[in-house]
């Protein structure tokens, strides 16, 4: 095709193709703008990345505390320590009485020797126990409530057992679990609050960056509008800019959390080993990380949207 023909053909294309090409151009244009001031861009991304990493890190901790809770307290067991003067026969009799109750499932008798053995196996207790003149531990009963009993019934059972002769101390392990659950619930709220606060901060940071950028390019916007650019066209590069910021910050946040996981992995592995595999440290699943990225992009877009809306609204009033 020669120049004359190219010049003579009127500009007319399908709306879809037109729209796609405009977007491609705006996408490139937004990247160009970011690359133009690398330091400022990097700084904004670092700030927003750290802000987003914090709730993710909290979430990581929360997930693992939850693992811990599951591993530690999935039994509702109750430990019953007997008085020092109760002997093996007395302990077995009491175990029999308890087994007869409708709210009790299984009862295990633990001799003082078993208890001492367990203590000795724990790190650091060995020497102290060897130096004891005699075994100070009483007989103990490990009571499992019958499957299906709830916390109220277990609490009633604990009260009943406490009143029995020969019983010295009753420790409700399930209560411990309930406390941990409450703690996890609290942690969940704190994480959510943090996510909302820092997400808002991220929107504001990006909104402000984009606002400054729009202001510094006011002349260019004016020219674009003079030669027929629609409000949507003028705005698009800035929306993409916000989305790029969000994406980059999201990647920074995810990398920070992966780093945190890596740093925690070693000490946690040791801890896990001491619990003989009942506990496992889990990193955040990739789905969560992908969602975090998507949310970051959405936040960036949102910030740019707010900033550009305000600017264009002002233009609308003056034009």
């Amino acid at each position, binding site marked *: 095709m020669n120049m004359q023909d190219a010049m003579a053909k009127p500009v007319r294309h399908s709306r879809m193709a037109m729209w796609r090409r405009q977007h491609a151009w705006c996408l490139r244009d937004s990247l160009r703008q970011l690359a133009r001031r690398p330091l400022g861009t990097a700084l904004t991304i670092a700030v927003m990345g750290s802000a987003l990493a914090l709730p993710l890190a909290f979430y990581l901790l929360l997930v693992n505390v939850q693992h811990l809770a599951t591993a530690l307290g999935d039994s509702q067991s109750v430990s019953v320590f007997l008085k020092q003067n109760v002997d093996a026969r007395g302990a077995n009799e009491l175990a029999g009485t308890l087994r007869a109750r409708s709210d009790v499932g299984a009862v295990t008798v633990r001799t003082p020797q078993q208890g001492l053995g367990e203590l000795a196996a724990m790190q650091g207790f060995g020497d102290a126990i060897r130096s004891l003149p005699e075994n100070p531990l009483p007989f103990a009963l490990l009571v499992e409530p019958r499957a299906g009993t709830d916390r109220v019934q277990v609490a009633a059972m604990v009260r009943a057992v406490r009143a029995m002769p020969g019983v010295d101390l009753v420790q409700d392990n399930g209560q411990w679990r309930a406390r941990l659950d409450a703690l996890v619930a609290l942690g969940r709220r704190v994480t959510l609050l943090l996510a909302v606060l820092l997400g808002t901060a991220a929107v504001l940071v990006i909104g402000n960056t984009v606002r400054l950028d729009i202001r510094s390019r006011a*002349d260019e916007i004016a020219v674009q509008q003079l*030669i027929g650019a629609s409000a949507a*066209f003028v705005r698009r590069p800035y929306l993409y800019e916000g989305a790029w910021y969000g994406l980059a910050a999201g990647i920074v946040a995810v990398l920070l959390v992966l780093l945190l996981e890596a740093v925690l992995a070693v000490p946690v592995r040791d801890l896990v080993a001491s619990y003989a595999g009942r506990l496992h440290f889990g990193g955040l699943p990739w789905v969560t990380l992908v969602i975090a990225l998507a949310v970051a992009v959405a936040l960036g877009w949102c910030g740019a949207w707010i900033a550009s809306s305000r600017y264009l609204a002002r233009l609308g009033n003056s034009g």
Partner: protein
Amino acid sequence: MIRFDSVSKRYPEGREALIDISFAVAAGEMLFVTGHSGAGKTTLLKLIALIERPSHGTLEVHGRSLARMKHREIPRLRRDLGMVFQDHRLLMDRSVADNVALPLVIAGVPHEERGQRVRGALEKVGLVGRGKDAPSSLSTGEQQRVGIARAIVARPALIIADEPTGNLDPQLSEEIMQLFVKLRETGCTILIASHDLPLLKRMKQRVLVLDHGHLIDDVPASQVA
């Protein structure tokens, strides 16, 4: 193509820039607007592109009434319009080719066709090979020609030019005017604001004469001497 009907324009805190202007321009016509500095030439062109809205009267462009045109309809109007600005209005941080390509980008023209059209437009204004340069490395006259290339690149049906030869030497002015004449032969309507009287006399086209906001004369091409 253009119709002014008792149009007046008063700037918010200024005196009246245009007073009771009426005239009509047929499609395919080429005409000049002239007058002393401050006569209202730029204001008249701005009304046509809805950069300013008239205070009184009605005007039509492309058969569309501009007086009550909604804000979001303005981009459409301007896309059908090639505008050359008195102060060129180039984007200084973009290459010459990018500047010229901007109307095509806004219209969503494919990349390859864009390149071709930009080369064609630069060729017409005599700036072949300067596409990659920054506008700031060009002379004022060359910058003016980049502005003209940008105005014609999308083949608009109407071109309005504000002092397009203001910074050009007589020979270049002549060349640019011949370019407008050629564009007009393809059916384009062309309205040029200029106070270059010798040039107007050579061009022998219709001339509107403004004086302190009044349209004092409308000289047909045949009577320009």
